[in-house]
């Protein structure tokens, strides 16, 4: 799994990636030097939980993907079944291209586990 994350991170613009369960347990991580694993995992889990809960209230059953663009970077959360693949990028990355890479990495992670 570590290898898949490292390959994903070789995409220009990706700063790091982590596989985290929605209760904050880190399954695998390959984050750059400027990203603290515990902080990213805790924040990601908090956001996944809050978002899931508020969407459940309006009748939604799952959160498949979350793309967030901020002033200095982007965050993408993709549900890969066992957990969420969370990717941190710089702000200039093309989201559509990024989503292709993330989907491919997510599939490889799932099939490795299977």
């Amino acid at each position, binding site marked *: 799994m570590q290898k898949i994350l490292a390959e994903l991170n070789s995409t220009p613009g990706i700063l790091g990636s982590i596989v985290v369960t929605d209760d904050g347990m880190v399954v695998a991580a390959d984050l750059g030097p400027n*990203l603290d694993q515990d*902080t*990213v995992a805790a*924040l*990601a889990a*908090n*956001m996944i*939980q*809050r*978002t899931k*809960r*508020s*969407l459940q*209230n*309006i*009748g*939604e*059953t*799952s*959160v*498949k*993907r*979350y*793309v*967030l*663009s*901020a*002033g*200095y*970077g*982007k*965050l993408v959360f993709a549900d890969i079944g066992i957990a969420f693949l969370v990717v*941190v990028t710089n*702000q200039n990355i093309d989201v559509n291209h990024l989503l292709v890479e993330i989907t491919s990495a997510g599939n490889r992670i799932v099939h490795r586990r299977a």
Partner: protein
Amino acid sequence: MGWFALWRRNRNLNAAIRKARTSQAPASIAAAIRKLISGGEYDKARLIARQAVESYPKSASIQDALRDLKKVRYAQEMKDLSEKIKQNPNPTLYARLAEMYYDLGETDQTLEVCRQCVANFPEYEGAYTIMGRLRHERFRKEGLARDGMKAVENYEKTIRLNPNSYKTLLELGGLYLEIGAIRLGVEKLEKIQEFDRTDERTNKLLDWARGQTPLPEEDLEDLFKIQQERRVQIRLETAADRIGMTAAQVERKVGRLEGIPGIISVGLVTPAGSPIVYRIHGEGLEEASFLEMLSSVFSAAQECSQRMDIGGVERGTITGEYVRVHFVAFETLALVVLTDVQSSKPEEVDLRVDAFIDEELYARGGAR
């Protein structure tokens, strides 16, 4: 640790203390507090944090640093409590853990621990009290009717289990008076007088309440809704003023988003997620749940991106099995659009929302 590393560590910490003492900027003081925390100097960090809170009670960076300090302080005890709950659960362990989450401002975790406590020990009043307090606080902050109703529900349960709970009677009585349910408020406050006739706060509230004319009917749901509408109207007027329009113009313009394919609902929110204007187009979507979603989704995104140090949120898309949430921030506000996954394309919705912000909301004067 070698002597050089130790010397360097102490030098850095002393520099942090000096900086905190001489700095006038809350952000620098917060950075110094964090440096002390990471150096393990908790007492010094606490002392400086306490002084900083007195000088800058409303500074977000100081509050954040203070929360980090509490987190470190609570970490071991929270871990121990969770472990004890797993092995041998009892209601006071749950209550202590919930109080800690509450103190850290972690609302969802607090509610979760309380829910577990209630599921295992439904006759324990402590969890209802904490949930009531939390909902009450959220009602004061956001003004959402659902929070108010939940606060009442939990406070009433506390009182049913402990009829002499002074604090809860006072809080609930005050909340009833605040929304105009005079009769209910007086009823709760008079209960305090049954065991304490000298309490000044109770007597003051009762004096005020007895001077008011009670409504013929006190329907709590209606009264909380009136409060919610008032708060939304105030926010709308402030926001409209900020973008150079009248409240009516903003409302009319937001209504024009109806044309987006697959649209279910739309809302304009403040950075904290408080609703300003909202419209529900789809059928079967409950207003209270939609407002809660509006309030939670944008503020969670904002908190996450700021804490991850990637700046303020500009836009986001959340895709579920059936619905998709789009949000775009502009002029310190955010527009949140909920669409049906089946009948909308995300790129198209984004384009329509961008065009709407540029052409409608930025086209000041509201002549359109």
